[in-house]
């Protein structure tokens, strides 16, 4: 029924479960209910999934309206294969804790790196001080 072959259109994806990756790194899973010409999305029964290592945790979020420009990619989820994953689901508190720990270790490593570079007289500008575009 694709009347526009060779194009990407979200019309066939409506009412199906999708995984959406946003530009800020969040992963949303929900039913795609509505779209428009800018690929703004309306996600229903959305769940934000946080991945840390082999574990993940789901935070139910309800209805999401996502502005199209913030979407990196999205893909349909096969409902039959959805449970077929090596990852282990944990509770929300646990996954948030894991995420916090992960962030902390990353920050510390970064600090050590910057310090080491500084000792050698080099400096690499940090990504957040650069312009985003």
């Amino acid at each position: 029924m694709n009347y526009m072959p060779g194009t990407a259109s979200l019309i066939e994806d409506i009412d199906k479960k999708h995984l959406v990756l946003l530009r800020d790194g969040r992963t949303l899973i929900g039913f795609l209910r509505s779209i428009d010409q800018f690929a703004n999305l309306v996600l229903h029964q959305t769940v934000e999934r946080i991945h840390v290592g082999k574990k993940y945790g789901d935070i139910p979020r309800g209805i999401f309206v996502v502005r199209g420009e913030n979407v990196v990619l999205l893909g349909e989820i096969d409902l039959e294969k959805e449970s077929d994953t090596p990852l282990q689901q944990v509770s929300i508190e646990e996954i948030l804790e894991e995420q916090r720990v992960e962030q902390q270790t990353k920050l510390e490593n970064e600090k050590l790196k910057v310090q080491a570079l500084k000792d050698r007289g080099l400096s690499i500008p940090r990504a957040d001080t650069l312009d985003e575009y």
Partner: protein
Amino acid sequence: MFRYESLEDCPLDEDEDAFQGLGEEDEEIDQFNDDTFGSGAVDDDWQEAHERLAELEEKLPAAVSEQTGNGERDEMDLLGDHEENLAERLSKMVIENDLEDPAIMRAVQTRPVLQPQPGSLNSSIWDGSEVLRRIRGPLLAQEMPTVSVLEYALPQRPPQGPEDDRDLSERALPRRSTSPIIGSPPVRAVPIGTPPKQMAVPSFNQQILCPKPVHVRPPMPPRYPAPYGERMSPNQLCNVPNSSLLGHPFPPSVPPVLSPLQRAQLLGGAQLQPGRMSPSQFARVPGFVGSPLAAMNPKLLQGRVGQMLPPAPGFRAFFSAPPPATPPPPQQHPPGPGPLVQNLRSQAPMFRADTTHLHPQHRRLLHQRQQQNRNQHRNLNGAGDRGSHRSSHQDHLRKDPYANLMLQREKDWVAKIQMMQLQSTDPYLDDFYYQNYFQKLEKLSAAEELQGDGPKKERTKLITPQVAKLEHAYKPVQFEGSLGKLTVSSVNNPRKMIDAVVTSRSEDDETKEKQVRDKRRKTLVIIEKTYSLLLDVEDYERRYLLSLEEERPALMDERKHKICSMYDNLRGKLPGQERPSDDLFVQIMCIRKGKRMVARILPFLSTEQAADILMTTARNLPFLIKKDAQDEVLPCLLSPFSLLLYHLPSVTVTSLLQQLMNLPQSAAAPAPSNPHLTAVLQNKFGLSLLLVVLSRGEDLQSSDPATESTENNKWMQVMFMATRELLRIPQAALAKPISIPTNLVSLFSRYVDRQKLNLLETKLQLVQGIR
């Protein structure tokens, strides 16, 4: 002004003038306040008028009712009414109604041209008791004192208590702004979330989905008279008396305008002779209604209008999935639009693509889709023997109570926008890679079909139709009643904000670095200009195929002219005595893009010109090699050079060899070291070029024994020197050439003895197998 409770309160030291002033004030007030003191108060009883209006209101269907707790929205509506009023007044003020600047008029006209909401009254704050009633509800709760007068004056109505359980679907929507170019989702009285009550009849073609045409008319009812039917030709439509089409404030020279639907059907239905249709017929805004079409066969049109039609030759649609019963795609008879359109573009008035209407092919697909959906729905309700896949899919949808929140109409609307975005005035320009890719694919599949007699595999291809260009002669907006001409700055008429003056710097002030930088910049600019010429020249072949017979000589002339200017750009114009310096060429060749460009230009140049380029390159090769160290782009020049070499005479080859190896003119004692040659040999490109030149020389020698002796001698001399040099070079310094010609062994065998031949062979790795 002062308002005193009584005269006694006035300060005694007031002048008498003040009292008189007060009295005058009162008179002034009397004069202006007609309603309170003048005829308005005596003749009209606005209270009664309000009551009458209120009664009218009650009689209207309950569908038009009020909202209770939504005070904010009501105020918004109030503001909206204000704006509407203002906008209407503004639009009346503007003189030019057939405005060419849609950016301005759209902003003004957006509001008033909305579909009138059912039951909404004239939007004046004083008249609309419905509005007032809406105010009163929430205001009673909020106690806004400013409106208390109104409240007092209004006819009393029962409070709006038991309306919470009214049917939500009958709520009036807030006003939506409509997008001017592409339209917007259909404005409905029912919010989108409500499940559909009935199947929507797809008459939306005639609703706002079909966006407004480019030029703006004064507010008119958006539906064109359906009773005229779609079977009438435009000529007939023009002649219908009292047609609303004629009731326009257009100048009489402009033929009446058709509705978007009719115009699009007209475009789709126009069966014109191929090749004769030119976009100049589209160029006038309503122009296709005019005389050229009168020449058309009206029977054709009458019979065709109203059906879904294959695209006319005016639309160069590239499609390979043929719609039922169509003539072959119009690629066979190349219509005029291509080069003509490009010519039109160069003219001063602006041309925009008419993307406001959907290509008939696209619209047909949309309709087909809708019908498929409708059939599906019908069949679902009837028989139940569907394929398992589909049934599971339908099951999912049935079980999912939130499915189909997005209606089919809305999906089609999004699809329609996507289709419209595919339209362009010149697909070859806008969408080059896609068009080329699919042309290649089609050629492949055509070739495959020829080989094997399999069934024709239809590969559906995305339709990217070519729409006509419309001419817009921009006329700035003029306001009525203004002193002088007020220019409104808009997207189509930008105003100059900054007065930037270009000052040229004097040569003395600049530092050396700046001079270098400027020179490089100039070179870059030259490269860019020459590249544009090159792209045009490369495109001429395609244009040649598409053009008509008469235009071809002109095209060829243009092409020649461009080639000449390219060469001038490369070598520098106005040589003076002889070629003054290779400087410009060398500069160009120092830049990677320049090298690639020269490689592409070479096939177009004449032999002498190309030989000149080759000579210059050889002369300056060490320098170029040094500059190419980072880019390593020189090898791209090898193949055009070798092609060129096969056309060069012996003399040229000889001198070329001399240049390459930097051999002295006479056979005197050679210089102790030859850095030129060293550099050449150490570079991949240099070595390859050298070998190719040698090979060519050998070919010439062996193939044509009857050459002149002087040339022969010259060649032999040069070869001796060359071999001497080559023998001197240590092996390790040699680069690896791109390709080794096969006849070099025989070449060298003429000039050196066995031992040295072996030496040369191993050094240059001429014998295959040694690698």
